[in-house]
């Protein structure tokens, strides 16, 4: 008896279309986007037309309602084609839409999620500042409550997509209370200017923002006053780290495809360079690293879908590992390409620069190491009474 055929879900159809779009419309032009330092609007609109800007938005708000594993596959698919196009998913989708869906009130979700899912609005997440990255306690962007208005002043920096965003989640403080505010970029007093000359993700419209007496209605506070860091930022960064973990797989896979294709065609000393064992060594290491990174990401996704308490830590581990694996893979791709690997007319040079960024964004590798080490000393030590050390769970 033939297996029963089931109708493909909207999410599965979108994944198949995304793969075709990524390979035909995005990947061939990724070098051009990088050199122009701007992802064209037509590419973002093309992703929106496929429903990808609402990938993780619940169906009732106009999204595709993808599960974590489907979203991981989508992130790899787009990220393999272009890191800046993948940034649209990480920022607009993981940091903004998914966080809004989780922590927004019904009025906020109804107001913003359908527009974000359709791509009519683009979102960005404004946390980092000129003098402040991961240290939220040192937040320089401040607001002052005046009746039903919050008056916002300060600066943000390194904000991906800010150059084209319509709405942002801005993290700001009043006294010791850190809050998350939904701010539309058209609000008077918001100034945004692009940051050029970045190492990687050059086409991601990364910008600096100034807020000068920007009036924000109190109903635009996302979550509760004072819950901006403990809940909103931590939730958003968990979503973001999951996306960046898959972004590492994406760059690793792209590097692998480039190096294996080149090794089978490039000739030296009368042989294909893939016939030399030292080149094979780099290919073997890259295959292994990419498979391992993908396995960690799948594990993190499965735990997230099961609402398991270890999903957060396994996501940290996946992000830490895959960002390292991506850089090594891209570096080996440069090596296999030789001189051509050092030239922007071939992909490895761009992959190498884009991979380097992954060890910094959404929490540096060093921050991940601190959290992973603490987890390891807690879980695997032999001192804890009544608890067996080790174990593979």
């Amino acid at each position, binding site marked *: 008896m033939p297996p029963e055929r089931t109708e493909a879900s909207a999410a599965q159809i979108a994944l198949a279309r995304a793969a075709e779009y990524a390979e035909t419309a995005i990947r061939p032009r990724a070098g051009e986007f990088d050199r122009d330092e701007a992802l064209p609007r037509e590419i973002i609109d093309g992703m929106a037309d496929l429903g990808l800007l609402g990938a993780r938005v619940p169906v009732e708000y106009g999204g595709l309602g993808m599960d974590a594993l489907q979203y991981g596959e989508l992130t790899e698919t787009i990220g393999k084609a272009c890191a800046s196009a993948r940034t649209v998913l990480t920022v607009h989708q993981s940091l903004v839409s998914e966080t809004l869906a989780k922590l927004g*009130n019904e009025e906020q979700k109804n107001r913003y999620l359908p527009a974000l899912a359709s791509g009519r609005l683009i979102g960005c997440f404004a946390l980092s500042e000129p003098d402040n990255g991961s240290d939220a306690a040192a937040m320089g962007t401040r607001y002052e409550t005046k009746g039903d208005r919050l008056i916002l002043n300060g600066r943000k920096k390194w904000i991906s997509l800010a150059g084209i965003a319509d709405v942002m989640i801005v993290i700001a403080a009043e006294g010791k209370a850190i809050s998350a505010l939904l701010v539309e970029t058209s609000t008077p007093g918001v100034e945004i200017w692009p940051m050029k000359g970045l190492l990687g993700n050059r086409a991601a419209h990364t910008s600096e923002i100034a807020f000068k007496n920007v009036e924000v209605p109190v109903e635009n506070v996302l979550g509760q006053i004072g819950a901006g860091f403990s809940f909103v930022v931590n939730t958003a960064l968990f979503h973001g780290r999951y996306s960046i973990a898959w972004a590492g797989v994406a760059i690793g896979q792209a590097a692998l495809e480039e190096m294996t294709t080149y090794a089978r065609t490039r000739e030296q000393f009368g042989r294909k360079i893939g016939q030399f064992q030292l080149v094979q060594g780099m290919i073997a290491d890259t295959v292994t690293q990419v498979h391992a990174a993908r396995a960690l990401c799948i594990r993190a996704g499965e735990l997230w879908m099961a609402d398991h*308490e270890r999903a957060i830590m396994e996501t940290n581990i996946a992000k830490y590992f895959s960002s390292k694996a991506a850089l090594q893979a891209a570096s080996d791709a440069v090596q296999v390409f030789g001189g051509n690997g050092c030239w922007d007319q071939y992909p490895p040079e761009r992959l190498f620069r884009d991979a380097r960024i992954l060890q910094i964004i959404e929490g540096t590798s060093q921050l991940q190491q601190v959290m992973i080490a603490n987890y390891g000393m807690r879980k695997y030590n032999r001192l804890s009474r009544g608890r067996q050390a080790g174990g593979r769970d």
Partner: protein
Amino acid sequence: MMRSSEEDRKAIRQFIKSHMDVFHNEDELTDTDHIFEKGFVGSLFAMQLLQFIEREFQVEVADEYIMLEHFSTVDNMMSLVDKLRGNAYAS
């Protein structure tokens, strides 16, 4: 069978103890200790506590309750769970 209030407290205490900073995890944890101010856990843990409360007690924490204060002590978490369940035995 529904657990007693004391069993609920024990579950919360155990969850916190199993996530305390590795060099604090032998410290005594009382039901009134502010777990963030005492440095037992970092602020990242707030989100894990939210997920734990929802999973363990089969409740949905409405957004008006998603504030650090409700997750800062075992007592406050018990009060939150009771409120969400509509119970009267909140301390």
